[in-house]
């Protein structure tokens, strides 16, 4: 049944692609989102038009709702709704933090690295419904 629904959504053209980079400053609270996504309505945190700038298909947004304080550290939540035939989100957190825990939709593949003191979390997946990424991090 699930398979039929998924096939139906593909046939109806509801599938989409998401290629976004999300940059979080070491002083959490703000995130810069840059990239492109076929259907922006799947990203509820971008539902305020004045927070988004679109230039020839390239999306620019500054969000203050993605990161929240959690214990001694911080938690970033990146939900999306809809069906994505290709999903690729790269998260960068700069300022001397370390990843603590990652929670994401089954089917998403992860690669985490650190580069010049910044966390890099590369998340990719294919054929996913409502993919979501949550991860927590704390100061080194």
């Amino acid at each position, binding site marked *: 049944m699930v398979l039929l629904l*998924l096939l139906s959504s593909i046939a109806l053209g509801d599938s989409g692609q998401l*290629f976004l*980079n999300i*940059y979080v*400053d*070491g*002083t959490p609270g703000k995130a*810069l989102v*840059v*990239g*492109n*996504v*076929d*259907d*922006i*309505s799947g990203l509820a945190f971008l539902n305020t038009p004045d*927070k988004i*700038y*679109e*230039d*020839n*298909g*390239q*999306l*620019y947004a*500054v969000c203050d709702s993605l990161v929240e304080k959690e214990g001694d550290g911080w938690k970033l939540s990146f939900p999306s709704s809809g069906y994505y035939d290709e999903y690729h989100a790269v998260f960068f957190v*700069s*300022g001397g933090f*370390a*990843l*603590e*825990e*990652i*929670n*994401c*939709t*089954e*089917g*998403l*593949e*992860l*690669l*985490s*690295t*650190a*580069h*010049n*003191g910044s*966390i*890099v979390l*590369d998340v*990719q*997946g*294919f*054929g*996913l*419904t409502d*993919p*979501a990424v949550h991860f927590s991090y704390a100061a*080194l």
Partner: protein
Amino acid sequence: MGLASLLFIGLSGMSLAEPDDNQNIDVPCQGMCPHDGEMMPPQNAGFPMGVPVEVLFSGHGFALVGNESHLLRLKVETIMPLDPDQIKGLLASNKSLEEIRDDILAREGEKTNRGSMILDSSIYPLINIAISASGDNSTALKADLADLSPLSAVNDTAILGSISMIISPSDGGMIGKGELRIDQGPLAARYSLLLDMEPHRNGQKKMMRR
């Protein structure tokens, strides 16, 4: 063959998608981290940070060795570099989004390539990416696989293997054929590659739905 492969890959991809089932991973600061029964690379040198501009190559297919076949996905994109200091400055400023875009686009002349490969469920960053014309409307793509094992953490340029492909027109589409070599780890082997390559995608020409 291409259609059968695409259908198989599509169904396999969908079978992975279980939106109600989450994977939860604790990530220590050092060493390997468990990931869905496998080991997750540690935090160390990654691939370049930047704003994705254009997908140069994107394909999916198979890596074949002996009578085994493994699902493989490949993506190479052009990015504009964006360093942590620049991000910090942009987020701390009161610049408008249009001004932020202008700041980012100011580095357009420094474009570079970033790529990655997924073999089964393991992601490998690509480094030393080289793209060249190969005659008959074909393109040669060569890259090294960055080694993210703990022992290589002190060396940003450690290499785990390499990939070499020729991407050529075929039956109205594009296919990639070549070889993948992985020197270490559970997937170490020399593979033959066969990929369906997707049409060229330029993010700046694609419009979003609202």
